[in-house]
């Protein structure tokens, strides 16, 4: 079928299939899945300038479907999401400034992909280590499976910082936490997202769990809330620049909507540590795709 806006002919079934795959990931892990969708879209013939914007557009819709399900399951902390957005927006802008500086230094093409790979590998290794430790703790200490966390040091320290004003997060089981901690975590994830040009779900999810001590299921739901705002904003800015094929995004969203429901529903059948262990594979896939891209472009060679 011809998509008149981007001027390409692609099977709508294929696009809906890509949406379905990414929808499952989004619903289950609370990530946008851009790092998986983008290579598939390029492979299926979507022009490069339309890939990012169109992906953001379908991500917005898919996340709305998944968020409605997570909200019904009590997995969304809207107060936390709204406060973090402040830091995220500032962080994204700061990240864009860092990119501009790197461009002026002529090192953006190597620094960003290498930083991306390093961050992905650290996130993957740490999440896998912690979740395996948590699963062992459940077996040996008979801990509540939902609350088990193999690494709580950072979250405890962050929660003990007493810089006013404070806010309570009943949906996340936190009585009192400094608002600056939430904005700070939002800023850090926004900074990385702005620098790396991604939605940042795979960074934000671990930060919410390990940095703030948010329960895994609530972290997944709240991450989706953040994705809707950031991807919605990204859709508008990219569309104004003529880089979004909305019809293509609508078609992808049809598949993603079903996938997101399956993913969101499936979280009911897995405890937090198991979800985190499975999540740890995602950054590895992302890193492999970036390395493959660098090899193809000849930026790095062995």
């Amino acid at each position, binding site marked *: *079928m011809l*998509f*008149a*806006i981007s001027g390409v002919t692609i099977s*709508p079934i294929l696009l*809906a299939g890509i949406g379905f795959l990414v929808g499952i990931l989004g619903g289950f892990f609370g990530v946008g899945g851009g790092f998986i969708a983008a290579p598939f879209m390029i492979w299926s013939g979507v022009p490069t300038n339309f890939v990012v914007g169109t992906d953001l*557009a*379908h991500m*917005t*819709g*898919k996340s*709305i*479907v998944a968020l*409605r*399900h997570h909200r*019904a*399951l009590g997995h969304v902390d809207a107060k936390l999401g709204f406060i973090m957005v402040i830091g995220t927006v500032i962080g994204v802008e700061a990240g864009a400034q860092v990119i501009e500086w790197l461009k002026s230094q002529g090192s953006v093409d190597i620094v960003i992909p290498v930083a991306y790979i390093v961050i992905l590998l650290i996130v993957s290794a740490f999440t896998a280590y912690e979740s395996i430790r948590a699963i062992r703790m459940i077996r040996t200490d008979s801990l509540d499976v939902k609350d088990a966390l193999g690494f709580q040091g950072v979250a405890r320290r962050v929660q003990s910082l007493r810089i006013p004003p404070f806010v309570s997060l009943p949906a996340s089981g936190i009585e009192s936490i400094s608002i600056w901690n939430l904005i700070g975590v939002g800023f850090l994830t926004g900074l990385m997202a702005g620098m790396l040009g991604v939605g940042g779900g795979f960074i934000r999810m671990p930060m919410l769990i390990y940095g703030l001590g948010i329960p895994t299921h609530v972290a997944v739901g709240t991450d989706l809330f953040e994705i809707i705002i950031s991807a*919605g904003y990204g*859709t*508008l800015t990219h*569309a*104004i*620049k*003529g880089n*979004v094929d*909305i*019809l293509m*995004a*609508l*078609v992808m*969203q*049809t*598949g993603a*909507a*079903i996938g997101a*429901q*399956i993913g969101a*529903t499936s979280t*009911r059948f897995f405890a937090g540590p198991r979800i985190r262990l499975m999540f740890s594979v995602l950054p590895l896939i992302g890193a492999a795709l970036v390395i493959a891209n660098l090899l193809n472009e000849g930026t790095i060679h062995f």
Partner: protein
Amino acid sequence: MEEKADRSFKLIIRNFLIEMVIYGILLVVYFFLALRYLSQPLADYFNSNLTLYAFIGLGLIVAQAVFLDMLVTFLFNAIGLDRME
């Protein structure tokens, strides 16, 4: 106790599969309607006014997500099935 949990799990899976079938049918119908009626008007907006196109596009994405989900909820209530939640 275990038998009760097993029955509850089967009920959840059954309702989930019915929900997926309803959702799938709605999406296929919508899919063809959208491709048929939205293609040309969207292309016209894209070529004439990108800002308007951007807002209409985002509106369509949000509306599609909310509308389909609400429709499924309505249908489930109408036929007396609980949703997965």
